[in-house]
C-alpha cells in the first residue's frame, strides 16, 4: 500500500508541476516561483500535506542541485572563466559587495549570528543566470552593447559561488577555525586542480567521456558527475561545487551534447528541488517575514541596478544601456534557493527559509517584469542616448587565453576582409 501511496503522491506532484509550467509558459514568466508555491501548498502546514514520498523527494532535490550546477559549469569553458576573472574583476567585486551587503546587514540587525549573515548575503547576492539569460534572449537584448558586461557579471557570480559554497558548508558544519581552514584549503586545491586539468588537459577528460552512443554518454556523464559530487561532499567541499567543476572540465562538442542530454533530467530534478524547498517551508511562517523580505527585495533591485550601471559604464555604454544592464540582473532564482536549502538543512535560524522563499518569489517575478518595463520607462522619461560615434567606443570583451588546445577567438577585435564570413568558434 505504501508504494502505491508514494506513486500517487509523486505522480500528483510532477503532474501539478507540469500544469504550473504550462501556466508559466503561457505568461512567459519563470516557473521557479510557481514550483516554490506548489511546494508550499503540499508541505507541512499547507493546504494538502504530503508525507509518503519524502525520501524520494529529498534525494531528488539533492540530484537537482547537482545537475543545476553541473549544467551551469557546462555553460562556460575554463578559458572563459579565467578570461572573465582577468577583465571583469572590478565590476564583479562591486556587484558582490553591493548585493551581499543588504543581506549581511539584515541578518546582523536581526541578531541571527554571523553564519546566517554569510548565508543571507549569498542569498541576496546571486542573480539567477538562467532567468536573466532567458529574459535577455526574449527581449532581443543579446545584441546590445551592454550584454557582454552583464554576461561577465554572471560568469563572475558563478565563479564566486564555486568559492562561496565550500565556505558556507564549512561554516554551517560549525567547523572550528582550523577545521574550516583545512576545508577551504582542500576546496581551493580541488578547484585549482580541476581548472588546471580543464585548461591544460581538457582532451583527456573528453577522451574518457567520449561515447559511441548518446545513451552511453548520458550514463557516463551522469555517473561521473554524481560520483565527483559525492566525493566533494565527503571532502567537505559541497557536492554542488564538485558538480560545477565537472561541468567546467567538459567543453567542446561533448559539453554541447551532454547539455542537451541532461537538460530534461535537470529540469525534472530541479523542479523537484524547488518543491522540496517549498515543502520544508511552513507557509504559516511567511507573513512574519514578509516585511523584511519586501525590504530586502527593494534593496536587491536597487543594488542590482547599481551594479549593472557600473558594469555597463566600465564598458563605455550610455545611460540607457546601463539601466538595461541593471534591470537584466535583478532576477533571483535557483541558486538563492540552493544556498537557502543548504542553510536550512543545517538547522540555521528557522526564519531564514521562509525569508529566502519570499525574497526569491518576489524577485523571480519582479525581475523579468522590471526588465520588460525598462525600455518603456526610458522612453517615458525621455532618456536620450548619447550620440557617440561608433568608432569612439571603448572596447569591452572577454578575452579567452589562447592555450595550445584552444584555437578560439582571443576576443580582440579583428579586421576581416569583407565577404569572407568569419566562422564563429563552436564550443
Amino acid at each position, binding site marked *: 500500500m505504501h508504494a502505491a501511496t508514494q506513486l500517487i503522491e509523486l505522480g500528483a506532484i510532477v503532474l501539478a508541476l507540469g500544469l504550473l509550467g504550462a501556466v508559466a509558459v503561457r505568461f512567459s514568466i519563470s516557473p521557479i516561483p510557481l514550483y516554490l508555491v506548489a511546494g508550499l501548498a503540499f508541505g507541512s502546514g499547507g493546504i494538502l500535506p504530503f508525507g509518503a514520498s519524502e525520501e524520494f523527494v529529498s534525494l531528488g532535490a539533492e540530484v537537482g542541485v547537482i545537475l543545476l550546477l553541473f549544467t551551469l559549469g557546462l555553460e*562556460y569553458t575554463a578559458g572563459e572563466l579565467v578570461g572573465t576573472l582577468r577583465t571583469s574583476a572590478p565590476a564583479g567585486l562591486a556587484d558582490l559587495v553591493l548585493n551581499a551587503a543588504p543581506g549581511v546587514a539584515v541578518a546582523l540587525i536581526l541578531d541571527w549570528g554571523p553564519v546566517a549573515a554569510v548565508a543571507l548575503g549569498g542569498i541576496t547576492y546571486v542573480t539567477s*543566470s538562467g532567468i536573466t539569460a532567458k529574459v535577455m534572449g526574449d527581449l532581443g537584448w*543579446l545584441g546590445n552593447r*551592454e550584454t557582454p558586461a552583464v554576461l561577465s557579471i*554572471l560568469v563572475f557570480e558563478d565563479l564566486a559561488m564555486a568559492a562561496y559554497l565550500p565556505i558556507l558548508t564549512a561554516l554551517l558544519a560549525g567547523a572550528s577555525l582550523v577545521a574550516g581552514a583545512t576545508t577551504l584549503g582542500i576546496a581551493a586545491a580541488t578547484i585549482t586542480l580541476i581548472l588546471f586539468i580543464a585548461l591544460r588537459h581538457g582532451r583527456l577528460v573528453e577522451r574518457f567521456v567520449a561515447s559511441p552512443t548518446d545513451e552511453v554518454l548520458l550514463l557516463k556523464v551522469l555517473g561521473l558527475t554524481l560520483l565527483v559530487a559525492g566525493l566533494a561532499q565527503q571532502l567537505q567541499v559541497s557536492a554542488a561545487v564538485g558538480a560545477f567543476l565537472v561541468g567546467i572540465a567538459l567543453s567542446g562538442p561533448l559539453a*554541447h551534447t551532454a547539455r542537451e542530454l541532461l537538460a530534461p533530467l535537470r529540469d525534472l530534478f530541479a523542479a523537484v528541488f524547488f518543491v522540496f524547498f517549498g515543502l520544508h517551508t511552513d507557509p504559516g511562517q511567511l507573513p512574519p517575514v514578509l516585511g523584511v523580505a519586501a525590504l530586502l527585495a527593494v534593496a536587491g533591485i536597487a543594488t542590482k541596478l547599481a551594479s549593472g550601471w557600473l558594469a555597463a559604464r566600465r564598458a563605455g555604454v550610455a545611460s540607457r544601456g546601463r539601466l538595461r544592464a541593471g534591470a537584466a540582473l535583478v532576477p533571483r532564482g535557483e541558486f538563492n534557493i540552493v544556498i537557502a536549502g543548504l542553510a536550512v538543512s543545517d538547522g540555521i535560524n528557522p526564519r531564514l527559509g521562509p525569508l529566502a522563499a519570499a525574497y526569491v518569489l518576489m524577485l523571480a517575478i519582479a525581475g523579468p517584469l522590471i526588465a520588460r518595463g525598462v525600455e518603456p520607462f526610458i522612453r517615458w522619461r525621455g532618456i536620450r542616448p548619447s550620440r557617440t560615434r561608433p568608432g569612439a567606443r571603448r572596447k569591452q570583451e*572577454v578575452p579567452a587565453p589562447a592555450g595550445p588546445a584552444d584555437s578560439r*577567438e582571443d576576443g580582440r*577585435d579583428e579586421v576581416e576582409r569583407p565577404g569572407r564570413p568569419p566562422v*564563429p568558434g563552436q564550443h
Partner: protein
Amino acid sequence: MDVERTSLPGIGLRHVFTTGRGRQIGVVSHRTGRRDLVIYDKDDPDTCVVSVALADEEANALAELLGTGRVVERLAELNRQVEGLVTEQILLTAASPFAGRRLGDTRARTRSGASIVAVVRDGEVIASPRPDFQFRAEDVVVVVGTDEGTAAVATILHGG
C-alpha cells in the same frame, strides 16, 4: 571594413560592423547554431532595435541571398536587358594553364569579344576583376558575351 568580434560567455559570439552609411548591423552566433540578425538604433550604438532569430537553414538562406545569389540575379537582369548576350560560369580547374596567372594573360576579350565580369572565389564575389587579377584553381569565372564568345573564353581558360 572592420568587423568587431565580441565573445558572449555562455551564449556564443557577436560580430558587428558599421556600414558606409553609418548603420550598425551584427550577428549573434549562439552555440546552439541559432543566429540572431541584429540591427542597431540609428542614434544609439548600444541598442539593437531589431533582433531576428534565425535557424541554421534560415541563416544559410539569408547568407545565400546576400552573397553569390546577388550576382546571379544581376546577371539574369543583364541577360534580360541585352538581347543576344549570355552569361556563362566557367570553373577554372587546376589543369588550366591560367591557374596562377593573370587575367590579362588570357587576352580573352581581344580573342573572343566576351568579357570576364566577375570571379567567384570561396563564395566571395570579386566583381570587375582588373587585368592584373591573378587566377587560382577552383575559381569560377563569370563571362558575358555572345554564345560563340563565351564558348571561346571557356576554350581559352581550359587550355585552348
